């Protein structure tokens, strides 16, 4: 593995998996080898004696471990339409008032009310089972289409509902949805990430070709694929490459944590072209594209997958926006993740308050102790801080102001403090927080995603 033995080999695009989580320098000595043999024996007898083998789980596990892959979903015909190279339809930035205000507009509030009701009545009750099944239920996803999630960021002229930049509305919606469940929220928001990207950066041809599917009755699954499986991954330097080939492009690389990858019919993929990071539209049926399940610690309802691109050839229609648009895409995606963390953190707070007020120890509710009460206070304080910092970034984005700094700060805060909230949520329930009878352990797993996710969702 060292540089001296294989000097000319480039760093791999995908970090090879470790064996049992061991660093590569770990080598068994003779005693260790003997223990390893014992371990195998013990496993076999234990399995036989207690019937612990759970065939289905095992199959899933092995499939993942061995890199089981399927082809991308067969995509519908996206008939080429529109004027090549002509600028697409754009909505204007929201006009600012110059007044400090934390109140959403009436339209935004109505939207939040609808989505909140959906989250409470349909998403939350489905969350535990969806986490277990690593799949968001069809009826919930169908209902999410009815409330207009995929067309939130699409201009009115193109069949959507957006009359101005929708980053603020999108942020409020993602927050409200994640209060139900973050995994299902990601699954439900994934197509909207692609339709919003098309609306923000698409040419007339790209919008005319792809957007009608999103504004129609049969909305395709779709995904924004930016992350790559590598430690310290920097989305501004993707290792997935695009090479010019005739009037088209050839893409190679691996994208990671792609929501509903197996079902998606259209991807927006981040790849480097001529030394610059760029976005490319890739239809799922394109030759050379494969999907590999990538279940994770949390967000399991989002059916996370890897997208393996081997010599995938796309046409001249594929490049979406320029390098600046790519950077904006990164920021808007991080913003969406911050918004999701707000909803889940709020769910934690709302759950622990009645719990610590009802749970008794030493003859009184545990909330009567400062050690417990201060933890709840800090959840409240940090959550509101996260919310305001995220809102500021969102409202700047909606008003067409620079927001790189604000998103970066929101992301740091939501990653750090959001995870602390997830951690405290479990801690406050003690042993009960550790078991699946309560949702706090799921929120703990979901909140870990915020600081590392790139792509998937977008506002």
């Amino acid at each position, binding site marked *: 593995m060292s540089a001296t033995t294989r000097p000319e080999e480039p760093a791999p695009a995908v970090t090879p998996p470790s064996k049992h989580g061991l660093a590569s320098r770990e080598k068994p000595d003779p005693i260790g080898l003997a223990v390893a043999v014992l371990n195998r024996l013990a496993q076999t007898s234990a399995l036989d004696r207690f019937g612990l083998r759970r065939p289905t789980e095992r199959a899933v596990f092995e499939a993942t471990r061995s890199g089981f892959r399927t082809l991308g979903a067969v995509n519908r015909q996206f008939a080429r339409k529109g004027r090549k190279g002509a600028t697409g339809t754009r909505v204007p930035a929201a006009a600012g*008032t*110059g007044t400090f205000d934390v109140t959403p507009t009436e339209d935004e509030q109505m939207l939040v009310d609808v989505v909140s009701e959906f989250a409470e009545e349909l998403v939350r009750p489905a969350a535990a089972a969806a986490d277990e099944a690593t799949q968001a239920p069809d009826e919930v996803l169908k209902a999410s289409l009815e409330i207009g999630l995929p067309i939130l960021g699409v201009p009115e002229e193109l069949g959507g509902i957006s009359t101005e930049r929708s980053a603020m509305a999108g942020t409020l919606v993602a927050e409200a949805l994640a209060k139900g469940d973050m995994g299902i929220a990601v699954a439900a928001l994934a197509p909207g990430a692609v339709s919003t990207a098309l609306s923000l950066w698409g040419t007339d041809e790209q919008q005319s070709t792809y957007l009608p599917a999103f504004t129609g009755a049969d909305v395709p699954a779709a995904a924004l694929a930016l992350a790559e499986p590598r430690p310290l991954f920097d989305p*501004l330097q993707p290792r997935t490459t695009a090479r010019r080939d005739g009037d088209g492009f050839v893409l190679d690389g691996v994208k990671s944590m792609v929501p509903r990858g197996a079902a998606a019919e259209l991807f927006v993929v981040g790849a480097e072209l001529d030394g610059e990071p760029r976005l490319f539209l890739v239809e799922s049926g394109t030759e050379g594209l494969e999907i590999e399940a990538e279940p994770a610690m949390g967000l399991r309802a989002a059916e996370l997958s890897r997208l393996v691109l081997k010599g995938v050839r796309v046409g001249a229609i594929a490049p979406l926006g320029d390098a600046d648009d790519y950077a904006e895409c990164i920021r808007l995606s991080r913003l969406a993740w911050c918004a999701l963390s707000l909803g889940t953190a709020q769910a934690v707070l709302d759950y622990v308050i009645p719990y*610590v007020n009802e749970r008794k120890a030493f003859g009184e509710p545990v909330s009567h102790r400062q050690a417990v009460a201060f933890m709840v206070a800090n959840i409240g304080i940090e959550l*509101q*801080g996260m919310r*305001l*910092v995220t809102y*500021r970034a969102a409202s700047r984005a909606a008003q067409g102001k620079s927001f790189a700094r604000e998103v970066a700060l929101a992301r*740091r805060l939501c990653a750090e403090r959001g995870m602390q909230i997830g951690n405290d949520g479990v801690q406050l329930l003690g042993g009960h927080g550790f078991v699946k009878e309560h949702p706090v352990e799921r929120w703990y797993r979901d909140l870990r995603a915020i600081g590392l996710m790139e792509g998937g969702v977008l506002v």
Partner: protein
Amino acid sequence: MINLETPKKFRPLIGQAHQVAMNLLRPNSRKYDQREHEYPKELDMLAAMIDGLSDSGASNGAGAAGVRRSEEEQAAAAAKDEGRTKNGANLASVLSIMEMCWGDVGLLLSMPRQGLGNSAIASVANDEQAERFKGVWASMAITEPGTGSDSANIQTTAVLDGDEYVLDGEKIFVTAGDRCDAVVVWATLDKSLGRAAIKSFVVPKGTPGMRVERLEHKLGIRASDTATIIFDGCRVPKENLLGSPEVDVKQGFAGAMATFDNTRPLVAAMALGCARASLELTKELLEGAGVEIDYDRPALGQSAAAATFLQLESDWEAAYLLTLQAAWKADNREPNSLEASMAKAKAGRVGSDITLRCVELAGSIGYGEHELLEKWARDSKILDIFEGTQQIQQLIVARRLLGLSSAELK
């Protein structure tokens, strides 16, 4: 419409405060840190200028919470009727104080006629009192040797004798207690009635029976004098009791505590101003050392110094917006007790965290007296203590969120 930018109409005000902070406070910062208890005479000139600006209506000074409630009420009500949100005196104060404390916290606290007592008068005084105490520099005397955070337990007494109250007791930690014109003193009318019997009294300097006993030597904000004041049979006219003399056991402490809903965001703003000074200088020092903060690249892919800086700045931003939110709620006459305590808790702790971390990031430059970083790290500490400690803020937030009384969550 959600918009969390600095209100446009306050930008000139902030600009003015920034110029004052840069050109008058900073040049005197180290001087009065080293000459504790010496009166910063430069401030008199500044106070005269600020008074002039206030009279011309061009400015809201540091004590802008001293804008009369009745006028503010009317403006807020009008805005509400029209479905507008209001950006008023509370936001203006928070923003200008933040700017001044970017200059120097200790000097801001020594600004003539801008004391915390002035905020108390503004919050609780009736119209006659407001007129009578106009232009008075009032400090605030609550804490006693045996009573800090549990201010309901104060021992200083006020006994009505004819047309006067007789005050007896000892007050400590009175900011500007030596330099002020008057002290707003908390005293109890009847210890057996608990917090409901605590009232505040305006005691002008020179009133017989009141004396400044001594001045403290402190960790930071050394430009600001901190006095111990003794009241020994001190008589004040009964008209100097702020608010109602009735002891309403049901109403309890609410009247006296209402002041804090206005002043806590101000103290949070002090912490934010001081912390921003540290962040800005540290950022420049780091850039000089080859560390650029990149907002687009993941923090963990950058140097440890850059990642640390991003974390500090994000905490600052959260505290800043919590503080603006608390002031904005007050401007719109919405209850803001929870938000005020959240702001104070977050700003207080990140103020210490940021200024201390910046000393570490800047190394010996940060620790040495050649720069002000070490001073800011000393100044910031008090801001997590006075006007309610970190722990008191957490108690208030916790009680609100959990719906618990002070008897249930002690």
